């Protein structure tokens, strides 16, 4: 019980003291993190309704805070599902509200990112946040002014208004002030929008920065990926903490039912076999398990070989079509190849790798590959060098595919998983898991083969052009010299020959 008390009393406090974990390390990082968390919540809110997101972000200057930092007002509007009025205060004013025991691919870093941003804003500016939301249709618009009671982790409602919703508006608006350093954060924020637009080609993103500059990222499609299905945890992926929680909430009175109903891909027979394997009585009440027994249960779950691998219905990859559309839209390359790998698993967690490679067009030549990394459709912008995809890219023999870093090349790697294997708490780069590494490498090889075909083709076209150039340079000269030598006034007719060279040329390609 002490643990629960800890959570209730000081969840906000805990994150306040450990805000580095959530990415609010410094004023420039904080402003980036705040925008990112809210935009991702908004994307999720629209996608859960299967409607293409329309997101408007405005950052406006409010005044000096210190020598290096300023106060900004951040406003994020979306057309998402909206929050029912009775949930608004806790959804935005209480940390760890609404944790679930089911799994699906989610964007949010901790599932508390939005609240963390508001908490950070309150800590740095001591001003309330405004939340306006409607679930659309006939429902009204509710507007709240909130602060968070950090010690008690409770929302304090300062003001509440109910407005008539004539336009049948649906969505959520979050507005609050925070301290930050926009000038420093600007490149990352713009990168973030561009890359988010790349993997959300069905979203309209608008950003107005403190100088009043407008950045628009317009959708190119209304097609959206299948939303992920919620799924139960897979037995290979559980830890003691999760087991304890499940035991607390389970209505089932024996182990057989407990296993069948709370775990992914565990049916009657598998459950029986497992209980036999682990020497646990099927009729045992899970609530009666001692701490030692729970630990043992976890080890046995990991040891048992006959669980079916998790299926990937809980994942929502972008899909090759959308990935391609996004890359074309944001990078405007001359050539693009994308590939989606079949679902795979690591430690009981399903994951899918999607990769893309783009060449030429508006992609600049940098002397190194431009690498875009994504996890669950979130751009990863920090710690590139440590990321497993970068390691795989650097280890690949690109020459084999006629690719060199001197070319204008961009490479994109997207991992979706119910549990992205981040290496550190900062959650900015993917750990070097052999299963993940293998999938990335295989995906990259596939697109590398495609770009090789493309490069071979343009090489050929180039050669053909040069060939034609040589003929049209020299044949007229031969005509001129031979006419002179033969004492002819009229030049020989070489048009036919030049034409035949062209025909010959196209046949070869």
């Amino acid at each position: 019980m002490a643990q629960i008390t800890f959570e209730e009393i000081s969840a906000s406090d805990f994150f306040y003291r450990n805000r580095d974990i959530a990415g609010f390390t410094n004023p420039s990082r904080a402003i980036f993190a705040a925008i990112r968390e809210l935009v991702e919540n908004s994307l999720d809110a629209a996608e859960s309704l299967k409607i293409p997101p329309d997101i408007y972000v405005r950052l406006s200057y409010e005044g000096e805070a210190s020598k290096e930092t300023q106060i900004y007002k951040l406003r994020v509007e979306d057309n998402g599902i909206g929050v029912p009025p009775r949930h608004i205060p806790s959804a935005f004013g209480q940390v760890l509200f609404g944790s679930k025991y089911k799994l699906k691919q989610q964007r949010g870093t901790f599932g508390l990112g939005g609240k963390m941003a508001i908490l950070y804003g309150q800590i740095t500016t001591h001003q309330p946040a405004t939340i306006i939301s409607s679930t659309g249709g006939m429902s009204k618009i509710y507007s709240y002014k909130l602060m968070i009671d950090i010690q008690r982790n409770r929302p304090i409602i300062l003001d509440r208004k109910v407005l008539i919703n004539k336009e049948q508006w649906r969505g959520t608006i979050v507005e609050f002030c925070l301290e930050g350093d926009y000038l420093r954060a600007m490149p990352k924020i713009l990168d973030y929008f561009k890359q988010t637009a790349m993997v959300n080609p069905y979203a309209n993103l608008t950003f107005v920065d403190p100088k009043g500059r407008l950045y628009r990222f317009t959708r190119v499609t209304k097609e959206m990926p299948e939303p992920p299905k919620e799924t139960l945890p897979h037995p290979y992926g559980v830890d003691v903490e999760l087991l304890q929680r499940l035991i607390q909430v389970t209505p089932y009175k024996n182990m057989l039912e407990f296993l069948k109903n709370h775990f992914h891909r565990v049916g009657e027979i598998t459950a029986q076999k497992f209980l036999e394997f682990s020497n646990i009585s099927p009729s045992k009440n899970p609530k009666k398990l001692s701490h030692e027994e729970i630990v043992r249960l976890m080890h046995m779950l990991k040891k048992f070989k006959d669980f079916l691998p998790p299926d990937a219905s809980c994942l929502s990859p972008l899909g090759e079509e959308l990935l391609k559309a996004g890359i074309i839209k944001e990078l405007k390359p001359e050539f693009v190849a994308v590939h989606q790998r079949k679902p795979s698993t690591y430690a009981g967690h399903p994951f899918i790798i999607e990769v893309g490679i783009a060449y030429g067009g508006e992609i600049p030549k940098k002397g190194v590959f431009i690498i875009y990394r994504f996890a669950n459709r979130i751009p990863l912008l920090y710690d590139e060098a440590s990321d497993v995809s970068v390691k795989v890219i650097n280890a690949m023999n690109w020459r084999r595919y006629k690719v060199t870093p001197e070319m204008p090349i961009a490479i994109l790697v997207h991992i979706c998983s119910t549990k992205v294997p981040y290496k550190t708490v900062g959650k900015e780069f993917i750990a070097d898991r052999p299963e993940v590494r293998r999938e990335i490498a295989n995906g990259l090889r596939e697109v590398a083969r495609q770009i090789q075909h493309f490069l071979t083709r343009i090489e050929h076209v180039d050669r053909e052009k040069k060939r034609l150039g040589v003929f049209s340079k020299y044949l007229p000269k031969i005509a001129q010299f031979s006419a002179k030598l033969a004492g002819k006034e009229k030049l020989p007719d070489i048009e036919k020959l030049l034409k035949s060279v062209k025909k010959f040329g196209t046949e070869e390609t």
Partner: protein
Amino acid sequence: MIEKRKEVLASLESLGLKIYDQLDNGYFPSIEMPSRSTENIYYDPQVRQFILGDRKVRRSARNIRHLKPFTQLTWAATFSHELTSQRKTSTLRDVYYSAQAYEMTFTDQQESNNIITDLETVLGLSREDFNIFPEERSAVFGDLTIEYTVPGYEGRTLNLTSHPDGVLIGPALTSSEFVKTSADKVIAIEKGGLFTRFIEENVHKKFNALLVLTAGQAPRATRHFIRRLNGELNLPVYVFTDGDPWGMHIAMVIISGSANAAHLRELNTPDAKWSGVWATDIVNYKLPTDPLDDVDMKRLYELQKDPRYKDPLWQREIKTFMKIKRKAEQEAFSRYGLTYIVDEYLPAKLEETK
């Protein structure tokens, strides 16, 4: 000479017409010529020189790799036609630069030289026939009266003793007619220093000889000139070179021609004699020497297998060089006094190789 010029112009024109007609009929023009690759070069004991075999190569404008050289060849033919019809001469270096006026660049001198050689092969004529000469450096001295045929000098005569440094063997001399001579032999000398010494020592009078300076490996015009002296005036030819594999080969090229000129005839003088300096002379005259280095030795092994060197004299000398592993220059005779070579060595060798 006028006949020759007409013949040259006619064959250039027919080459032009051939290319023109092919183009005009909608074909990629192509030219066939004997292959000059080493596999197609044979030594013909009958004519006592290298000749090309039956193998042909085809240069076609359809082939992208042939297109540039084909164009260059057509240009070179046009340029040569212009030279010959206007009775002007040019050098290989000149050709290289002239091409640029026609936006017909050559990558380097070697490339333009090769094209001229191609043209020689196609036409079966030597470049001197279409008035392209190498840079002159060889000379002749002695009692021979010639009559010029070049424009502006037609009918004028010159005695080749009139200038004490000798007369340059250039286009004008090469194309002149021989009028009369009192000489009864030709002595060809590799080096300028010795050529001058021979003139100073009146070798031409004492031995009744025409002196020819080859200045190293004799240019083709000089080889042709020597052949004419031998053929038209019936003068025996004696060649004096340094006593090393390179000097030996200078003599051999005058006698049997070079592989590089296998596509051409009438450049060699099969009856010319190599009179020294032999390897056996180095031994017999106890000449001051230098050691043969690796390159020299390698050259000797090559020459040993060369069909031109199959005669016993040559084989004996090669073996002697290999045995003594020494070489000597013509100047080495100076250890016995400046005139020793003229007073003692020369008459002995002329007698020996008669």
